[in-house]
């Protein structure tokens, strides 16, 4: 439903580019604080690389802990970009317009952060960095082993990162051209180069539109494959029975969309408040996203139940011990209770009500709650699975993160938010041309005597 007022093009430009020109004290205070947290986390990473991974809480059964949890979490958040942009663009949902850019940018920055996690988590990151950049080791004369899920994983993530950057860039070109026309000096030169000679001719618009649709369609398989492959990092492990599950790929993908779309809603509400975009991020958009979330959350919950059912149905010792640890042993059982409440039982019934979906405060709280829950979900999959690996009961153990790990995890959250806010200083977070297009193309449907703006455009 189109509930906003119609503005002139100049008004839209002025409003949406305000984040580039004006900057409030609040903005710099937030960015500064986040930067400080990132700095502290960087020091923690340096300390860890200097001393060795012994400064973490990892131990012999639990070789992967907080870092891998965080890796899966950020990969999950990154799924929102394509979910919203590509699928909604292809399905011509009108309400996507203010959300797409924010979602795509969140995708890029969370992917970048996610990629950092396995790098610093390896024993010898200086050697892993080499392998990530080049697939052949000249000194040792070996290729990488393509049987390993740890080779599929960076391949998938890097493909996703490259295509999302292209996706964002194609959508940015017309907006960059507007900034170019409004700036001067060195800025003008930089934006001129970035706008690739955009003059707004019909031919250019045609190419831009085709590129956008093509990329949307091509990126969809990547979107499904990335989290499937991330899930196979776990699914391929035959020794860890609760990981070795065929349901993991769809379960992880839908879980990623659940947390990713929630992340986008949180960010949109914060952005609306910080930059004063009340006329662009409107209640109707959040309402539509809330309905989408409702569907996703219920689908995800089905997979969660199935995962537990398959696990318990087998009646195997180590699998049962894992479930026992997840559900009945403190502190993991407290994590489980918090997880199930924050990820499903609290937010999802709330979203059933239109009033809640149109209340920004409640939507902010529920979507942040989903992401707290989804972070814990990944932790509950990774750690108890390893801690109760196989039936050698003497090697069973638990895991507690060290202060170093917690600092670094906090740093990643600060980093994504900081990069997001800094992006807003350089490029508009809401696509200008898309909003204008939406105003031009708005359809009206006749229902009886009344005329109602259409949500989906028909051609």
């Amino acid at each position: 439903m189109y509930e906003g007022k119609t503005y002139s093009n100049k008004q839209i430009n002025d409003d949406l580019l305000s984040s580039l020109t004006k900057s409030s004290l609040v903005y710099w205070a937030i960015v500064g604080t986040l930067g400080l947290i990132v700095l502290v986390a960087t020091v923690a990473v340096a300390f860890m690389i200097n001393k060795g991974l012994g400064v973490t809480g990892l131990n012999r059964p639990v070789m992967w802990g907080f870092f891998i949890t965080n890796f899966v979490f950020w990969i999950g958040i990154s799924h929102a970009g394509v979910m919203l942009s590509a699928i909604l663009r292809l399905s011509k949902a009108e309400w996507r317009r203010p959300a797409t850019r924010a979602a795509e940018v969140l995708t890029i920055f969370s992917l970048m952060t996610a990629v950092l996690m396995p790098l610093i988590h390896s024993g010898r990151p200086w050697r892993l960095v080499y392998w990530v950049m080049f697939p052949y080791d000249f000194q040792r004369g070996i290729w990488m082993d393509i049987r390993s899920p740890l080779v599929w994983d960076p391949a998938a993530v890097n493909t996703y990162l490259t295509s999302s950057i292209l996706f964002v860039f194609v959508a940015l070109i017309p907006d960059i051209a507007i900034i170019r026309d409004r700036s001067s000096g060195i800025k003008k030169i930089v934006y001129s180069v970035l706008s690739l000679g955009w003059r707004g001719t019909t031919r250019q618009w045609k190419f831009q539109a085709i590129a956008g649709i093509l990329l949307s369609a091509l990126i969809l398989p990547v979107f499904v494959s990335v989290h499937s492959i991330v899930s196979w990092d776990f699914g391929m492990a035959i020794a860890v029975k609760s990981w070795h599950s065929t349901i993991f790929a769809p379960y992880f993908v839908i879980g990623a969309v659940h947390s990713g779309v929630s992340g986008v809603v949180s960010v949109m509400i914060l952005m609306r408040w910080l930059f004063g975009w009340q006329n662009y991020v409107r209640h109707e958009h959040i309402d539509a996203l809330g309905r989408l979330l409702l569907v996703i959350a219920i689908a995800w919950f089905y997979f969660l139940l199935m995962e537990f059912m398959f696990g318990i149905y087998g009646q195997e010792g180590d699998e049962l011990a894992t479930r026992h640890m997840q559900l009945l042993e403190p502190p993991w059982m407290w994590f489980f209770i918090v997880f199930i409440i924050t990820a499903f039982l609290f937010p999802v019934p709330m979203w059933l009500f239109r009033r809640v979906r149109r209340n920004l405060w409640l939507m902010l709280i529920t979507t942040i709650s989903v992401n707290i829950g989804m972070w814990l979900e990944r932790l509950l999959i990774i750690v108890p699975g390893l801690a109760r690996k196989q039936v050698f009961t003497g090697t069973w153990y638990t895991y507690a993160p060290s202060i170093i790990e917690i600092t670094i995890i906090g740093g990643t959250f600060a980093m994504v938010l900081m990069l997001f806010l800094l992006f807003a200083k350089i490029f508009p977070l809401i696509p200008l041309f898309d909003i204008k297009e939406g105003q031009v193309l708005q359809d009206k449907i006749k229902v009886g005597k009344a005329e109602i703006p259409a949500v989906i455009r028909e051609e």
Partner: protein
Amino acid sequence: MAKQHKWGMVVDIDRCIGCQACVIACQSENNVPINEEVDFLSRRAKQWIRIDRFWEGEYPNVKARFIPVFCQHCDNAPCEPVCPTYATYHNDQGLNVQVYNRCVGTRYCANNCPYQVRFFNFFNPSWPESLWNQLNPDVTVRSRGIMEKCTFCVQRIRRAERLIEGQKGEELTDQKIKDGNFMPACVNACPTDTLVFGDLNDETSEVVRKSKSDRSYRLFAELGTEPSVFYLKKVDPAAKSH
């Protein structure tokens, strides 16, 4: 051309008394750092061979059961395909080999090992100065950030090949390994002959004979890992014959 070997081990649980001599022998042969209390408490102790103890029965008839567990050198090893850098691979002698300088420390192999016999160097290892001359020059001291595990004392196998197959030009038989003291350190140290090492391709060897015993089984055989280590189950006189 020298005969193709396939090294294997037989562990006779009936003979194991849990004395830990193999653990100590392995530690000094393979430059495994000294485990202190804190290492055990944080579950980071390195024991390439460990004795797992299980209690059996109800009080007062409680019995301690011991089982030595070390790298099973699986023919179908789960740790191998998950390594992105070929740091762990299978060589042509049936050994699961760990190449330290290739390892980047993803620890995926450790996660994927059902026997929990892979050890990560969380810190650089250290020894008191008095023990510096004790280190074995044939074995690499592993730096931090890489995985390590039982090698079946590959340095001793190589020495046997060099001396017997290379210099003398003779065939390396089971008897020559025993006579020349080329067996892994744990096998040498075992006072009860629980551990038997040998060539599974040599039909006359003791490992082949023992591995065909009707007490023989392999750990987690249901996972399809095809270990090269055979366990002989405990002889229980009280048990009824089937």
